[in-house]
C-alpha cells in the first residue's frame, strides 16, 4: 500500500450538495446498509437511469457506461462482468482507497451490472500483494455471504489493468494485451463487461438515488463526483472526492500544493500542463479539453521548481519501456529508444539532436500498439518536452542545477512468466 492510499481522504464540499458520496461509506456491511439501505432489486429502468445520469467510465477512457452495458447485454449468450480494481498506474490510489473504504458499494455495483447484462460470472480484480485492500475486499465478500462474486488477484504491473490483458489473465494467460474486444469475446470467450471499480460504485448510487440526484453536483457533460489522487510536490497528498467542475487550483490548495511549475493530469497516461494554464482549469472534460487535456484516471501530480524535470521524464520513460509487453515492434523497440535517449538527455554531455529525435520517434510510435501503452508514453514525453523546453535547453547547455528527487514513483513491473 502506498503512502497516499493509507491517508484519510480529504473531502471537498459543494454548496447545496452532500459530499462525499462514495467515500462516506462503510467499510463494514452494517454501516453501508445503515447509510444506503439494502441493495435495491435491478429494475427495468436502471439502464435508462444510467443513461440519464450520464455515467462515464472512471478507468481513464471515460466511455459511456450505458452504451458499454448495452453492447454486452445485446451480444447474446452467456456473459461475464469484471470489476477492474487492478490499479497499476503508479501514482493512482483512488481504486485502492475506494475498495478499502467502501467495498460494498463496488460489490453492489458489480451485482447490479451482472443483472443488467445477464451475467452468470462476476469477478472482482485487484492487484496482488496489497494486504490492506485484499483484506477489506475479503471481509466484505464474507460479510455478504455471497458465493456469487469471485476475487481474482493480478500481477503487479501496469498492463494487468488493461482490459484485454486482464481478460487474458483471468483466462489463464500471461496477461498480455490482444486485439479482441472484451465485449465481443472476453472471459471464457464470452461477451464481457469490464468496468472500473469506481464506475460500479457510481452505478450502485444511481440505482438507489436516481439520475436527478446524481446530477445535483457536477457539470452537464460530467455529472456527479469523481475520485482523484493528488501526488507529487504537495504536503497533503491523497485521494479526494470532488464534484466535477471544481477548480483545479482549489483542489491543489486543499492538497497543500507548492507553487507548481507544472501539473501532470491523468497520470503517466496523461499530459503535462504548464503553470500558466492552471488558473483556468476546472476538473471536467469540457474545460480540460480546451487545453488538450483530460482527467484520465484522475491522477494529478504537481512538479515544483526545485525538482529536475528531465530526470523525472527519464525515469518515467524507462518505466514505460519496462512495462511494454514486448509484443508490438514500435512499442518494444520504440519505447526502449525513447527511454535511452531521454536518459541520455539527463546525463552528462547530452546530444543537442535528442529533443528533435524524441519528437520524431513520438510521432512514429503513436497509435501503433495493440493497446494504448505506447500512446501513453508518447503523450507524456511530447507534453513534457514542450512544458519543460527551457530546462531541456539548460541540460543541453550543461547547466541544470535542480535536484534529482525521484518525485514520480516508477516501481518495477512483476516479470512476465
Amino acid at each position, binding site marked *: 500500500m502506498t503512502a497516499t492510499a493509507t491517508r484519510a481522504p480529504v473531502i471537498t464540499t459543494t454548496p447545496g450538495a452532500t459530499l462525499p458520496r462514495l467515500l462516506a461509506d462503510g467499510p463494514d456491511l452494517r454501516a453501508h446498509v445503515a447509510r444506503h439501505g439494502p441493495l435495491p432489486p435491478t429494475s427495468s429502468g436502471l439502464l435508462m437511469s444510467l443513461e440519464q445520469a450520464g455515467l462515464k467510465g472512471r478507468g481513464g477512457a471515460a466511455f459511456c457506461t450505458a452504451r458499454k452495458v448495452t453492447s454486452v447485454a445485446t451480444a447474446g449468450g452467456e456473459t461475464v462482468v469484471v470489476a477492474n480494481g487492478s490499479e497499476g498506474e503508479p501514482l493512482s490510489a483512488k481504486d485502492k482507497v475506494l475498495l478499502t473504504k467502501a467495498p460494498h458499494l463496488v460489490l453492489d455495483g458489480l451485482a447490479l451490472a451482472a443483472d443488467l447484462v445477464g451475467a452468470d460470472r462476476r469477478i472482482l480484480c485487484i492487484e496482488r500483494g496489497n494486504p490492506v485492500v485484499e483484506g477489506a475486499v475479503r471481509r466484505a465478500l464474507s460479510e455478504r455471504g455471497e458465493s456469487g462474486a469471485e476475487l481474482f488477484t493480478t500481477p503487479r504491473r501496469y498492463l494487468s489493468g488493461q482490459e484485454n490483458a486482464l481478460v487474458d489473465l483471468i483466462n489463464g494467460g500471461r496477461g498480455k*494485451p*490482444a*486485439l479482441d474486444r472484451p465485449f465481443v469475446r472476453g472471459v471464457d470467450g464470452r461477451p464481457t463487461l469490464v468496468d472500473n471499480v469506481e464506475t460500479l460504485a457510481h452505478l450502485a448510487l444511481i440505482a438507489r438515488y436516481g439520475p436527478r440526484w446524481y446530477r445535483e453536483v457536477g457539470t452537464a457533460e460530467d455529472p456527479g463526483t469523481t475520485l482523484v489522487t493528488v501526488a507529487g510536490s504537495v504536503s497533503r497528498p491523497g485521494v479526494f472526492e470532488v464534484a466535477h467542475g471544481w477548480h483545479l487550483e482549489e483542489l491543489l490548495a486543499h492538497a497543500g500544493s507548492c507553487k507548481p511549475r507544472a501539473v501532470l493530469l491523468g497520470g503517466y497516461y496523461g499530459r503535462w500542463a504548464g503553470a500558466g494554464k492552471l488558473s483556468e482549469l476546472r476538473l471536467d472534460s469540457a474545460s480540460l479539453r480546451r487545453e488538450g487535456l483530460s482527467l484520465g484516471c484522475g491522477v494529478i501530480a504537481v512538479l515544483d521548481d526545485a525538482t529536475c524535470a528531465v530526470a523525472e521524464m527519464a525515469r518515467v520513460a524507462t518505466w514505460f519501456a519496462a512495462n511494454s509487453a514486448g*509484443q*508490438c*515492434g*514500435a*512499442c518494444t*523497440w*520504440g519505447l526502449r*529508444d525513447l527511454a535511452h535517449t531521454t536518459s541520455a538527455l539527463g546525463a552528462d554531455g547530452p546530444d543537442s539532436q535528442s529533443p528533435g529525435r524524441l519528437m520524431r*520517434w513520438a510521432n*512514429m*510510435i503513436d*497509435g*501503433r*500498439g*495493440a*493497446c494504448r501503452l505506447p500512446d501513453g508514453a508518447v503523450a507524456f514525453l511530447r507534453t513534457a518536452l514542450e512544458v519543460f523546453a527551457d530546462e531541456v535547453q539548460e541540460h543541453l547547455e550543461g547547466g541544470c542545477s535542480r535536484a534529482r528527487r525521484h518525485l514520480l514513483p516508477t516501481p518495477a513491473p512483476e516479470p512476465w512468466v
Partner: protein
Amino acid sequence: MSSHLTVDPIVCDGHGICAELLPEHITLDDWGFPIINPAAIPGHRLADARRAVKHCPVLALRLRQATSPPDGVAK
C-alpha cells in the same frame, strides 16, 4: 466501398516485405516495422496490395473492405 491495408502489430515481426512490394502505401519505421497509410488503395494497385498480403510470412497484413478508413490501433 474501398480497400484498406491493416497490420496486426502483435503478429508482425518486421520482415519488411510489404514495404518493398507496396512502397507508396507502406513505409518502415526506424526499427523496421511497417507504417501503413490508412488511405484507400486505388483500384490499379489492388493486385499489388493482395500480393503484399499473400507474401507476409506471418500473415500479419490484411486487406479490409470498409465504407470509411478503419480506426483504432491498426493504422
